[in-house]
Protein backbone atom coordinates (compact mmCIF):
# COMPACT_ATOMS: atom_id res chain seq x y z
CA UNK A 1 0.00 0.00 0.00
CA UNK A 2 1.33 3.38 -0.91
CA UNK A 3 1.81 5.97 1.82
CA UNK A 4 -0.36 8.53 0.07
CA UNK A 5 -3.21 7.40 -2.13
CA UNK A 6 -5.25 9.89 -4.10
CA UNK A 7 -8.10 8.65 -6.23
CA UNK A 8 -10.37 10.66 -8.53
CA UNK A 9 -9.92 13.79 -6.46
CA UNK A 10 -12.16 16.73 -7.39
CA UNK A 11 -12.50 20.16 -5.81
CA UNK A 12 -15.03 22.67 -7.00
CA UNK A 13 -15.26 26.17 -5.58
CA UNK A 14 -18.36 28.28 -5.48
CA UNK A 15 -17.43 31.72 -6.70
CA UNK A 16 -19.82 34.58 -6.13
CA UNK A 17 -20.66 36.57 -9.21
CA UNK A 18 -20.98 40.24 -8.45
CA UNK A 19 -22.07 42.85 -10.90
CA UNK A 20 -20.13 46.07 -11.07
CA UNK A 21 -20.95 49.15 -9.06
CA UNK A 22 -22.69 49.66 -5.76
CA UNK A 23 -26.03 48.55 -7.19
CA UNK A 24 -24.49 45.27 -8.23
CA UNK A 25 -23.18 44.71 -4.73
CA UNK A 26 -26.56 45.48 -3.20
CA UNK A 27 -28.19 43.11 -5.64
CA UNK A 28 -25.69 40.42 -4.71
CA UNK A 29 -26.47 40.96 -1.04
CA UNK A 30 -30.12 40.03 -1.57
CA UNK A 31 -29.96 37.43 -4.29
CA UNK A 32 -26.44 36.10 -4.48
CA UNK A 33 -25.47 34.31 -7.66
CA UNK A 34 -22.74 31.75 -7.71
CA UNK A 35 -20.87 29.96 -10.39
CA UNK A 36 -18.84 26.83 -9.96
CA UNK A 37 -15.18 26.65 -10.71
CA UNK A 38 -13.26 23.41 -10.82
CA UNK A 39 -9.86 23.85 -9.22
CA UNK A 40 -8.87 20.20 -9.19
CA UNK A 41 -10.42 17.93 -11.75
CA UNK A 42 -10.30 14.20 -11.17
CA UNK A 43 -6.67 13.58 -10.26
CA UNK A 44 -5.18 10.32 -9.01
CA UNK A 45 -1.69 9.39 -7.86
CA UNK A 46 0.14 7.25 -5.33
CA UNK A 47 3.20 8.30 -3.41
CA UNK A 48 5.43 5.76 -1.70
CA UNK A 49 7.19 6.29 1.59
CA UNK A 50 10.43 8.19 1.25
CA UNK A 51 9.70 9.74 -2.14
CA UNK A 52 10.69 13.32 -2.91
CA UNK A 53 7.97 14.65 -5.17
CA UNK A 54 7.93 17.97 -6.97
CA UNK A 55 4.38 19.13 -7.51
CA UNK A 56 4.50 21.81 -10.16
CA UNK A 57 2.24 23.89 -12.30
CA UNK A 58 1.39 27.47 -13.12
CA UNK A 59 -0.29 29.84 -10.69
CA UNK A 60 -3.89 28.76 -10.35
CA UNK A 61 -3.26 25.28 -11.75
CA UNK A 62 -4.58 23.69 -8.56
CA UNK A 63 -1.38 23.02 -6.63
CA UNK A 64 -2.28 24.71 -3.39
CA UNK A 65 -5.81 23.34 -3.49
CA UNK A 66 -4.40 19.82 -3.74
CA UNK A 67 -1.97 20.41 -0.89
CA UNK A 68 -4.76 21.87 1.24
CA UNK A 69 -6.85 18.76 0.64
CA UNK A 70 -3.92 16.44 1.37
CA UNK A 71 -3.31 18.21 4.68
CA UNK A 72 -7.00 18.08 5.57
CA UNK A 73 -7.47 21.85 5.53
CA UNK A 74 -10.01 21.50 2.75
CA UNK A 75 -12.69 18.90 2.21
CA UNK A 76 -12.71 17.42 -1.31
CA UNK A 77 -15.86 17.78 -3.39
CA UNK A 78 -15.44 14.13 -4.34
CA UNK A 79 -12.74 11.48 -4.51
CA UNK A 80 -10.57 9.79 -1.93
CA UNK A 81 -7.42 10.65 -0.07
CA UNK A 82 -5.60 8.30 2.26
CA UNK A 83 -2.44 9.38 4.02
CA UNK A 84 -0.88 6.47 5.85
CA UNK A 85 -4.33 4.92 6.10
CA UNK A 86 -5.98 8.07 7.47
CA UNK A 87 -8.55 10.24 5.73
CA UNK A 88 -7.02 13.66 6.48
CA UNK A 89 -10.15 15.80 6.69
CA UNK A 90 -12.00 13.30 8.85
CA UNK A 91 -9.32 12.39 11.39
CA UNK A 92 -7.73 15.78 11.37
CA UNK A 93 -5.86 15.70 14.66
CA UNK A 94 -4.59 12.17 14.13
CA UNK A 95 -3.40 13.18 10.66
CA UNK A 96 -1.77 16.37 11.93
CA UNK A 97 0.44 14.34 14.26
CA UNK A 98 2.08 12.51 11.35
CA UNK A 99 2.51 15.43 8.95
CA UNK A 100 4.37 18.69 8.80
CA UNK A 101 3.61 21.61 6.52
CA UNK A 102 5.03 24.93 5.43
CA UNK A 103 2.75 27.32 3.62
CA UNK A 104 4.76 30.04 1.90
CA UNK A 105 4.85 33.12 4.03
CA UNK A 106 2.49 32.00 6.78
CA UNK A 107 4.37 31.21 9.93
CA UNK A 108 3.62 28.49 12.42
CA UNK A 109 6.01 30.07 14.90
CA UNK A 110 4.90 32.38 17.69
CA UNK A 111 5.59 35.81 16.29
CA UNK A 112 6.43 37.64 19.52
CA UNK A 113 8.40 34.91 21.23
CA UNK A 114 11.98 33.69 20.88
CA UNK A 115 12.29 30.83 18.37
CA UNK A 116 13.24 28.32 21.05
CA UNK A 117 9.95 29.00 22.87
CA UNK A 118 8.05 28.03 19.72
CA UNK A 119 10.09 24.86 19.49
CA UNK A 120 9.24 24.05 23.11
CA UNK A 121 5.53 24.55 22.42
CA UNK A 122 5.81 22.30 19.37
CA UNK A 123 7.51 19.68 21.52
CA UNK A 124 4.56 19.76 23.91
CA UNK A 125 1.96 19.73 21.13
CA UNK A 126 3.40 16.72 19.36
CA UNK A 127 4.54 15.04 22.57
CA UNK A 128 8.08 14.65 21.27
CA UNK A 129 10.16 12.58 23.71
CA UNK A 130 12.97 14.56 25.41
CA UNK A 131 15.79 12.57 23.83
CA UNK A 132 14.37 12.80 20.34
CA UNK A 133 13.74 16.52 20.72
CA UNK A 134 17.28 17.22 21.88
CA UNK A 135 18.76 15.08 19.13
CA UNK A 136 16.72 16.74 16.39
CA UNK A 137 17.28 20.23 17.73
CA UNK A 138 21.04 19.71 17.83
CA UNK A 139 21.12 18.29 14.33
CA UNK A 140 18.81 20.89 12.78
CA UNK A 141 20.67 23.72 14.50
CA UNK A 142 23.84 22.43 12.90
CA UNK A 143 22.57 21.94 9.36
CA UNK A 144 20.40 25.05 9.20
CA UNK A 145 22.83 27.16 11.21
CA UNK A 146 20.29 28.28 13.80
CA UNK A 147 22.65 28.72 16.74
CA UNK A 148 22.38 32.51 16.89
CA UNK A 149 18.70 32.63 16.03
CA UNK A 150 17.15 30.47 18.76
CA UNK A 151 17.01 33.22 21.38
CA UNK A 152 15.77 35.88 18.97
CA UNK A 153 12.13 36.84 18.61
CA UNK A 154 10.59 35.62 15.37
CA UNK A 155 9.43 39.11 14.40
CA UNK A 156 13.05 40.29 14.42
CA UNK A 157 14.29 37.63 12.00
CA UNK A 158 14.92 38.19 8.31
CA UNK A 159 12.91 36.23 5.77
CA UNK A 160 15.68 33.69 5.26
CA UNK A 161 16.30 33.24 8.97
CA UNK A 162 12.59 32.81 9.58
CA UNK A 163 12.24 30.19 6.87
CA UNK A 164 15.16 28.19 8.25
CA UNK A 165 13.49 28.17 11.66
CA UNK A 166 10.18 27.34 10.02
CA UNK A 167 11.66 24.32 8.25
CA UNK A 168 13.27 23.13 11.48
CA UNK A 169 9.93 23.49 13.31
CA UNK A 170 8.21 21.45 10.61
CA UNK A 171 10.57 18.47 10.90
CA UNK A 172 10.98 18.56 14.67
CA UNK A 173 8.43 15.84 15.43
CA UNK A 174 9.75 13.40 12.79
CA UNK A 175 6.70 13.65 10.53
CA UNK A 176 6.07 10.86 8.05
CA UNK A 177 4.99 13.29 5.35
CA UNK A 178 5.99 16.91 4.88
CA UNK A 179 4.18 19.30 2.55
CA UNK A 180 6.21 22.30 1.50
CA UNK A 181 4.22 24.90 -0.39
CA UNK A 182 6.66 27.42 -1.87
CA UNK A 183 9.28 27.08 0.87
CA UNK A 184 11.98 28.98 -1.01
CA UNK A 185 9.93 31.93 -2.22
CA UNK A 186 11.82 35.19 -1.87
CA UNK A 187 14.97 33.63 -0.39
CA UNK A 188 18.54 34.23 -1.46
CA UNK A 189 20.60 31.49 -3.11
CA UNK A 190 22.57 30.49 -0.05
CA UNK A 191 19.48 30.00 2.09
CA UNK A 192 17.80 28.10 -0.74
CA UNK A 193 20.76 25.75 -0.98
CA UNK A 194 20.82 25.35 2.76
CA UNK A 195 17.16 24.35 2.82
CA UNK A 196 17.50 21.98 -0.14
CA UNK A 197 20.41 20.24 1.54
CA UNK A 198 18.44 19.93 4.75
CA UNK A 199 15.47 18.33 2.99
CA UNK A 200 17.70 15.84 1.22
CA UNK A 201 19.63 14.97 4.39
CA UNK A 202 16.51 14.36 6.45
CA UNK A 203 14.92 12.34 3.65
CA UNK A 204 17.97 10.12 3.50
CA UNK A 205 18.21 9.67 7.24
CA UNK A 206 14.55 9.34 8.23
CA UNK A 207 12.93 8.34 4.96
CA UNK A 208 10.56 11.29 5.27
CA UNK A 209 8.23 11.69 2.32
CA UNK A 210 8.32 15.23 0.96
CA UNK A 211 5.89 16.90 -1.42
CA UNK A 212 7.19 20.18 -2.65
CA UNK A 213 5.50 22.87 -4.71
CA UNK A 214 7.68 25.60 -6.05
CA UNK A 215 8.22 28.00 -8.89
CA UNK A 216 11.96 27.73 -8.56
CA UNK A 217 12.78 24.71 -10.67
CA UNK A 218 16.23 24.45 -9.18
CA UNK A 219 14.45 23.19 -6.09
CA UNK A 220 13.03 20.39 -8.18
CA UNK A 221 16.28 19.71 -10.05
CA UNK A 222 18.22 19.37 -6.83
CA UNK A 223 15.75 17.83 -4.43
CA UNK A 224 13.10 15.80 -6.22
CA UNK A 225 13.18 12.41 -7.91
CA UNK A 226 9.68 12.56 -9.23
CA UNK A 227 7.60 15.23 -10.88
CA UNK A 228 3.85 15.62 -10.93
CA UNK A 229 2.81 18.36 -13.31
CA UNK A 230 -0.67 19.79 -12.97
CA UNK A 231 -2.30 22.09 -15.46
CA UNK A 232 -5.82 23.53 -15.26
CA UNK A 233 -6.70 21.05 -12.53
CA UNK A 234 -5.56 17.87 -14.27
CA UNK A 235 -2.31 15.98 -14.07
CA UNK A 236 -0.47 16.11 -17.39
CA UNK A 237 2.68 14.35 -16.28
CA UNK A 238 3.56 12.02 -13.43
CA UNK A 239 6.86 10.19 -13.32
CA UNK A 240 10.59 10.32 -12.78
CA UNK A 241 12.39 13.58 -13.32
CA UNK A 242 14.65 12.03 -15.97
CA UNK A 243 11.70 10.65 -17.90
CA UNK A 244 10.12 14.08 -17.82
CA UNK A 245 13.19 15.54 -19.45
CA UNK A 246 13.36 12.79 -22.04
CA UNK A 247 9.71 13.08 -22.89
CA UNK A 248 9.55 16.82 -23.24
CA UNK A 249 13.10 17.98 -23.53
CA UNK A 250 13.85 17.00 -27.09
CA UNK A 251 15.68 20.19 -27.84
CA UNK A 252 19.32 21.07 -27.55
CA UNK A 253 20.63 24.58 -27.48
CA UNK A 254 23.98 25.17 -29.19
CA UNK A 255 25.91 28.40 -28.88
CA UNK A 256 28.70 29.18 -31.34
CA UNK A 257 31.39 31.79 -31.23
CA UNK A 258 32.32 32.55 -34.80
CA UNK A 259 34.33 34.87 -37.06
CA UNK A 260 34.43 35.84 -40.71
CA UNK A 261 30.73 35.40 -41.13
CA UNK A 262 29.77 35.83 -44.76
CA UNK A 263 25.99 35.94 -44.67
CA UNK A 264 23.00 35.41 -42.41
CA UNK A 265 21.85 31.90 -41.78
CA UNK A 266 18.86 30.88 -43.80
CA UNK A 267 16.71 28.21 -42.31
CA UNK A 268 16.55 25.28 -44.65
CA UNK A 269 14.86 22.65 -42.56
CA UNK A 270 11.50 22.63 -40.86
CA UNK A 271 11.36 25.37 -38.26
CA UNK A 272 10.37 23.03 -35.49
CA UNK A 273 13.58 21.13 -35.91
CA UNK A 274 15.90 24.06 -36.24
CA UNK A 275 15.55 27.56 -34.91
CA UNK A 276 17.95 30.49 -34.75
CA UNK A 277 17.52 32.13 -31.38
CA UNK A 278 20.24 34.71 -31.62
CA UNK A 279 22.55 35.83 -34.37
CA UNK A 280 25.20 38.52 -34.77
CA UNK A 281 28.73 38.92 -36.08
CA UNK A 282 30.30 36.93 -33.26
CA UNK A 283 27.60 34.76 -31.72
CA UNK A 284 25.04 32.33 -33.00
CA UNK A 285 22.55 30.52 -30.78
CA UNK A 286 20.54 27.69 -32.21
CA UNK A 287 17.87 25.43 -30.83
CA UNK A 288 17.28 22.13 -32.60
CA UNK A 289 15.34 18.92 -32.24
CA UNK A 290 17.71 16.20 -31.20
CA UNK A 291 15.52 13.43 -32.59
CA UNK A 292 15.82 14.79 -36.10
CA UNK A 293 19.26 16.37 -36.22
CA UNK A 294 22.66 15.61 -34.73
CA UNK A 295 25.18 18.10 -33.43
CA UNK A 296 27.37 17.26 -36.41
CA UNK A 297 24.58 18.24 -38.83
CA UNK A 298 24.38 21.63 -37.18
CA UNK A 299 28.13 22.16 -37.11
CA UNK A 300 28.33 21.29 -40.78
CA UNK A 301 25.62 23.68 -41.85
CA UNK A 302 26.92 26.52 -39.66
CA UNK A 303 30.43 26.16 -41.06
CA UNK A 304 29.04 26.99 -44.49
CA UNK A 305 28.47 30.53 -43.26
CA UNK A 306 31.46 31.15 -41.04
CA UNK A 307 34.45 29.89 -39.20
CA UNK A 308 33.60 28.28 -35.83
CA UNK A 309 35.93 29.23 -32.99
CA UNK A 310 34.18 27.65 -30.08
CA UNK A 311 30.89 26.02 -29.23
CA UNK A 312 28.82 25.25 -26.19
CA UNK A 313 26.09 22.65 -26.08
CA UNK A 314 23.38 22.53 -23.50
CA UNK A 315 20.35 20.34 -22.96
CA UNK A 316 17.14 22.10 -22.22
CA UNK A 317 16.59 22.67 -18.50
CA UNK A 318 13.34 22.11 -16.67
CA UNK A 319 12.57 25.77 -16.91
CA UNK A 320 12.69 25.91 -20.70
CA UNK A 321 10.69 22.71 -20.96
CA UNK A 322 8.01 24.04 -18.65
CA UNK A 323 7.84 27.33 -20.50
CA UNK A 324 7.11 25.41 -23.67
CA UNK A 325 4.48 23.29 -21.97
CA UNK A 326 2.76 26.33 -20.48
CA UNK A 327 2.80 28.08 -23.82
CA UNK A 328 1.15 25.02 -25.31
CA UNK A 329 4.06 24.26 -27.61
CA UNK A 330 4.41 20.71 -26.42
CA UNK A 331 1.48 18.40 -26.60
CA UNK A 332 1.42 15.53 -24.15
CA UNK A 333 1.67 12.18 -25.85
Amino acid at each position, binding site marked *: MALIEVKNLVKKY*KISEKEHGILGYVKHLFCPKYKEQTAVNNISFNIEEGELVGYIGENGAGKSTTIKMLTGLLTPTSGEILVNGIIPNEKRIQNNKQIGAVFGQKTQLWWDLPVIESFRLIKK*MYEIPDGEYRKNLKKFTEILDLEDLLEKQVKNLSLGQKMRCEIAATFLHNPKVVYLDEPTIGLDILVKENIRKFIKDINKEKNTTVILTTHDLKDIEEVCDRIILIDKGTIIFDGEKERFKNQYGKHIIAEFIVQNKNSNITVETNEEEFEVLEENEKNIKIKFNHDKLTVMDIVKSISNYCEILDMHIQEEGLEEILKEIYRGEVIND
Partner: protein
Amino acid sequence: MVRNIKLYLSFFGASIKKMMEYRVDCLVGMISQIAFQIIELIFIWIIFQNTDNIAGWTFEHLLLLYGVMMLAISVTDLLFDSTYDIGKRLIRKGKFDTILLRPVHPLISVLGESETSTALGYIVLSIVLIVSMLIKLQISITFSLIIKIIYFGILGGFIIGGIQTIFSITGFWTYKSNEVVWSVFQLHKLAEYPIEIYNKFIRIIITFILPFAFASYYPTLDYLIGDQTSLIFIVPLIVVVIWIIAIILWNWALKKYRSTGN
Protein backbone atom coordinates in the same frame (compact mmCIF):
# COMPACT_ATOMS: atom_id res chain seq x y z
CA MET B 1 -9.09 16.32 27.93
CA VAL B 2 -6.14 16.54 30.32
CA ARG B 3 -3.82 16.88 27.34
CA ASN B 4 -5.96 19.69 25.93
CA ILE B 5 -5.97 21.56 29.23
CA LYS B 6 -2.20 21.16 29.53
CA LEU B 7 -1.73 22.49 26.01
CA TYR B 8 -4.11 25.34 26.68
CA LEU B 9 -2.03 26.31 29.71
CA SER B 10 1.15 26.17 27.61
CA PHE B 11 -0.38 28.41 24.94
CA PHE B 12 -1.75 30.74 27.58
CA GLY B 13 1.64 30.88 29.25
CA ALA B 14 3.13 31.88 25.91
CA SER B 15 0.53 34.65 25.62
CA ILE B 16 1.45 35.96 29.05
CA LYS B 17 5.13 35.98 28.08
CA LYS B 18 4.18 37.85 24.95
CA MET B 19 2.28 40.44 26.98
CA MET B 20 5.36 40.94 29.13
CA GLU B 21 7.17 41.88 25.94
CA TYR B 22 4.67 44.67 25.47
CA ARG B 23 4.75 46.31 28.88
CA VAL B 24 4.04 49.79 27.52
CA ASP B 25 0.97 48.55 25.63
CA CYS B 26 -0.26 46.91 28.82
CA LEU B 27 0.23 50.06 30.84
CA VAL B 28 -1.49 52.27 28.27
CA GLY B 29 -4.32 49.74 27.93
CA MET B 30 -4.78 49.64 31.68
CA ILE B 31 -4.86 53.41 32.10
CA SER B 32 -7.21 54.01 29.17
CA GLN B 33 -9.54 51.28 30.40
CA ILE B 34 -9.71 52.81 33.86
CA ALA B 35 -10.39 56.25 32.36
CA PHE B 36 -13.13 54.81 30.17
CA GLN B 37 -14.80 53.06 33.08
CA ILE B 38 -14.65 56.17 35.26
CA ILE B 39 -16.59 58.07 32.58
CA GLU B 40 -19.28 55.39 32.71
CA LEU B 41 -19.39 55.71 36.49
CA ILE B 42 -19.83 59.46 36.16
CA PHE B 43 -22.97 58.81 34.09
CA ILE B 44 -24.39 56.65 36.86
CA TRP B 45 -23.54 59.37 39.36
CA ILE B 46 -25.38 61.97 37.24
CA ILE B 47 -28.50 59.77 37.21
CA PHE B 48 -28.41 59.66 40.99
CA GLN B 49 -28.24 63.44 41.18
CA ASN B 50 -31.88 63.32 40.08
CA THR B 51 -33.15 60.33 41.99
CA ASP B 52 -32.50 58.47 45.25
CA ASN B 53 -32.86 55.01 43.90
CA ILE B 54 -33.55 52.95 40.82
CA ALA B 55 -36.11 50.21 41.48
CA GLY B 56 -35.08 50.27 45.13
CA TRP B 57 -31.32 50.18 44.38
CA THR B 58 -29.23 53.03 45.78
CA PHE B 59 -26.11 54.51 44.21
CA GLU B 60 -23.88 52.25 46.35
CA HIS B 61 -25.89 49.16 45.43
CA LEU B 62 -25.55 49.99 41.79
CA LEU B 63 -21.81 50.56 41.99
CA LEU B 64 -21.42 47.20 43.71
CA LEU B 65 -23.38 45.58 40.89
CA TYR B 66 -21.21 47.43 38.40
CA GLY B 67 -18.05 46.22 40.12
CA VAL B 68 -19.26 42.61 40.17
CA MET B 69 -19.91 42.72 36.44
CA MET B 70 -16.54 44.31 35.84
CA LEU B 71 -14.79 41.51 37.72
CA ALA B 72 -16.47 38.95 35.47
CA ILE B 73 -15.56 41.01 32.40
CA SER B 74 -11.93 41.12 33.51
CA VAL B 75 -11.88 37.31 33.57
CA THR B 76 -13.50 37.20 30.12
CA ASP B 77 -10.98 39.70 28.89
CA LEU B 78 -8.04 37.78 30.26
CA LEU B 79 -9.08 34.30 29.12
CA PHE B 80 -11.36 34.66 26.12
CA ASP B 81 -10.30 37.92 24.55
CA SER B 82 -9.01 36.11 21.43
CA THR B 83 -12.47 34.94 20.37
CA TYR B 84 -13.50 38.55 19.94
CA ASP B 85 -12.38 38.93 16.33
CA ILE B 86 -11.12 35.65 14.90
CA GLY B 87 -12.27 36.60 11.41
CA LYS B 88 -10.14 39.68 11.15
CA ARG B 89 -7.18 38.54 13.18
CA LEU B 90 -6.81 34.89 12.20
CA ILE B 91 -8.95 33.77 9.30
CA ARG B 92 -8.51 36.62 6.87
CA LYS B 93 -4.75 36.63 7.35
CA GLY B 94 -4.56 32.87 6.78
CA LYS B 95 -3.11 32.30 10.24
CA PHE B 96 -6.00 30.00 10.97
CA ASP B 97 -4.64 27.44 8.53
CA THR B 98 -1.52 26.96 10.63
CA ILE B 99 -3.75 26.58 13.69
CA LEU B 100 -5.76 23.90 11.89
CA LEU B 101 -2.57 21.97 11.19
CA ARG B 102 -1.72 21.60 14.85
CA PRO B 103 -2.49 18.28 16.52
CA VAL B 104 -4.91 19.92 18.93
CA HIS B 105 -8.48 21.23 18.72
CA PRO B 106 -8.35 24.68 17.10
CA LEU B 107 -10.48 26.19 19.85
CA ILE B 108 -7.71 25.39 22.35
CA SER B 109 -5.20 27.21 20.15
CA VAL B 110 -7.50 30.18 19.64
CA LEU B 111 -8.36 30.52 23.34
CA GLY B 112 -4.68 30.22 24.21
CA GLU B 113 -3.87 33.27 22.10
CA SER B 114 -5.15 35.89 24.47
CA GLU B 115 -4.04 39.36 23.45
CA THR B 116 -5.56 41.44 26.19
CA SER B 117 -3.93 44.58 27.44
CA THR B 118 -6.96 45.77 29.39
CA ALA B 119 -7.72 42.92 31.80
CA LEU B 120 -5.42 44.25 34.48
CA GLY B 121 -7.17 47.64 34.48
CA TYR B 122 -10.54 45.94 34.87
CA ILE B 123 -9.35 43.77 37.74
CA VAL B 124 -7.87 46.67 39.70
CA LEU B 125 -10.91 48.89 39.24
CA SER B 126 -13.44 46.16 39.99
CA ILE B 127 -11.71 45.19 43.24
CA VAL B 128 -11.57 48.83 44.33
CA LEU B 129 -15.28 49.25 43.54
CA ILE B 130 -16.44 46.03 45.20
CA VAL B 131 -14.43 46.48 48.39
CA SER B 132 -15.26 50.15 48.85
CA MET B 133 -18.99 49.60 48.27
CA LEU B 134 -19.13 46.63 50.64
CA ILE B 135 -17.55 48.82 53.31
CA LYS B 136 -19.92 51.68 52.56
CA LEU B 137 -22.93 49.39 52.69
CA GLN B 138 -21.61 48.01 56.00
CA ILE B 139 -21.54 44.43 54.75
CA SER B 140 -18.90 42.55 56.69
CA ILE B 141 -16.22 41.14 54.41
CA THR B 142 -16.02 37.57 55.67
CA PHE B 143 -13.79 34.85 54.30
CA SER B 144 -16.77 33.05 52.76
CA LEU B 145 -17.87 36.26 51.02
CA ILE B 146 -14.40 36.69 49.48
CA ILE B 147 -14.46 33.10 48.24
CA LYS B 148 -17.93 33.63 46.80
CA ILE B 149 -16.91 36.82 45.02
CA ILE B 150 -13.92 35.06 43.43
CA TYR B 151 -16.04 32.00 42.57
CA PHE B 152 -18.83 33.97 40.89
CA GLY B 153 -16.31 36.33 39.31
CA ILE B 154 -14.51 33.49 37.54
CA LEU B 155 -17.69 31.64 36.56
CA GLY B 156 -19.25 34.91 35.39
CA GLY B 157 -16.21 35.37 33.16
CA PHE B 158 -16.79 31.89 31.75
CA ILE B 159 -20.46 32.72 31.07
CA ILE B 160 -19.64 35.88 29.13
CA GLY B 161 -16.64 34.22 27.48
CA GLY B 162 -18.80 31.28 26.46
CA ILE B 163 -21.43 33.52 24.91
CA GLN B 164 -18.68 35.40 23.09
CA THR B 165 -17.17 32.12 21.86
CA ILE B 166 -20.54 30.95 20.53
CA PHE B 167 -20.97 34.11 18.48
CA SER B 168 -17.32 34.18 17.44
CA ILE B 169 -18.11 31.54 14.81
CA THR B 170 -19.59 34.34 12.70
CA GLY B 171 -15.95 35.22 12.08
CA PHE B 172 -15.73 32.23 9.73
CA TRP B 173 -18.01 34.07 7.33
CA THR B 174 -17.44 37.75 8.03
CA TYR B 175 -13.70 38.13 7.79
CA LYS B 176 -13.68 41.86 7.94
CA SER B 177 -16.04 42.66 10.77
CA ASN B 178 -16.84 41.39 14.20
CA GLU B 179 -20.04 43.40 14.58
CA VAL B 180 -22.08 40.38 15.65
CA VAL B 181 -19.72 39.46 18.48
CA TRP B 182 -19.44 43.10 19.44
CA SER B 183 -23.21 43.65 19.57
CA VAL B 184 -23.82 40.52 21.63
CA PHE B 185 -20.98 41.41 23.95
CA GLN B 186 -22.41 44.88 24.48
CA LEU B 187 -25.63 43.34 25.77
CA HIS B 188 -23.76 42.57 28.98
CA LYS B 189 -24.27 46.24 29.79
CA LEU B 190 -27.95 45.45 30.39
CA ALA B 191 -26.87 43.32 33.32
CA GLU B 192 -24.98 46.22 34.87
CA TYR B 193 -28.35 47.44 36.14
CA PRO B 194 -30.94 45.72 38.36
CA ILE B 195 -33.16 43.65 36.10
CA GLU B 196 -36.28 44.97 37.87
CA ILE B 197 -36.07 48.05 35.69
CA TYR B 198 -36.65 46.02 32.52
CA ASN B 199 -39.78 44.54 31.02
CA LYS B 200 -40.38 40.80 30.94
CA PHE B 201 -38.86 40.36 27.50
CA ILE B 202 -35.45 41.74 28.39
CA ARG B 203 -35.44 39.94 31.72
CA ILE B 204 -36.01 36.63 29.97
CA ILE B 205 -33.25 37.36 27.50
CA ILE B 206 -30.56 38.22 30.03
CA THR B 207 -31.60 35.43 32.38
CA PHE B 208 -32.30 32.49 30.09
CA ILE B 209 -31.14 33.21 26.56
CA LEU B 210 -27.96 35.20 27.02
CA PRO B 211 -27.60 34.71 30.78
CA PHE B 212 -25.46 37.76 31.52
CA ALA B 213 -27.51 38.38 34.67
CA PHE B 214 -25.87 35.34 36.27
CA ALA B 215 -22.51 37.07 35.98
CA SER B 216 -23.62 40.16 37.86
CA TYR B 217 -27.18 40.68 39.07
CA TYR B 218 -27.87 37.37 40.82
CA PRO B 219 -24.51 37.11 42.61
CA THR B 220 -24.84 40.73 43.73
CA LEU B 221 -28.29 39.95 45.11
CA ASP B 222 -26.65 37.16 47.08
CA TYR B 223 -23.97 39.47 48.48
CA LEU B 224 -26.62 42.03 49.47
CA ILE B 225 -29.42 39.80 50.79
CA GLY B 226 -27.62 36.49 51.13
CA ASP B 227 -30.35 33.95 50.48
CA GLN B 228 -29.36 32.69 47.07
CA THR B 229 -27.59 29.46 48.08
CA SER B 230 -28.85 27.56 45.05
CA LEU B 231 -26.85 29.97 42.90
CA ILE B 232 -23.67 28.10 43.84
CA PHE B 233 -24.96 25.15 41.82
CA ILE B 234 -26.95 26.93 39.13
CA VAL B 235 -24.09 29.11 37.86
CA PRO B 236 -21.61 26.28 37.12
CA LEU B 237 -24.41 24.39 35.42
CA ILE B 238 -25.03 27.36 33.14
CA VAL B 239 -21.32 27.52 32.38
CA VAL B 240 -21.25 23.86 31.38
CA VAL B 241 -24.32 24.19 29.13
CA ILE B 242 -22.99 27.30 27.40
CA TRP B 243 -19.62 25.71 26.73
CA ILE B 244 -21.11 22.49 25.40
CA ILE B 245 -23.13 24.58 22.96
CA ALA B 246 -20.01 26.59 22.10
CA ILE B 247 -17.95 23.48 21.32
CA ILE B 248 -20.71 21.89 19.24
CA LEU B 249 -21.18 25.07 17.20
CA TRP B 250 -17.45 25.47 16.74
CA ASN B 251 -17.12 21.94 15.39
CA TRP B 252 -20.00 22.58 13.02
CA ALA B 253 -18.45 25.85 11.82
CA LEU B 254 -15.07 24.18 11.32
CA LYS B 255 -16.65 21.55 9.14
CA LYS B 256 -18.37 24.22 7.05
CA TYR B 257 -15.18 26.25 6.84
CA ARG B 258 -13.18 23.30 5.57
CA SER B 259 -15.63 22.57 2.79
CA THR B 260 -15.47 26.09 1.37
CA GLY B 261 -11.93 27.20 2.10
CA ASN B 262 -10.88 30.79 1.81
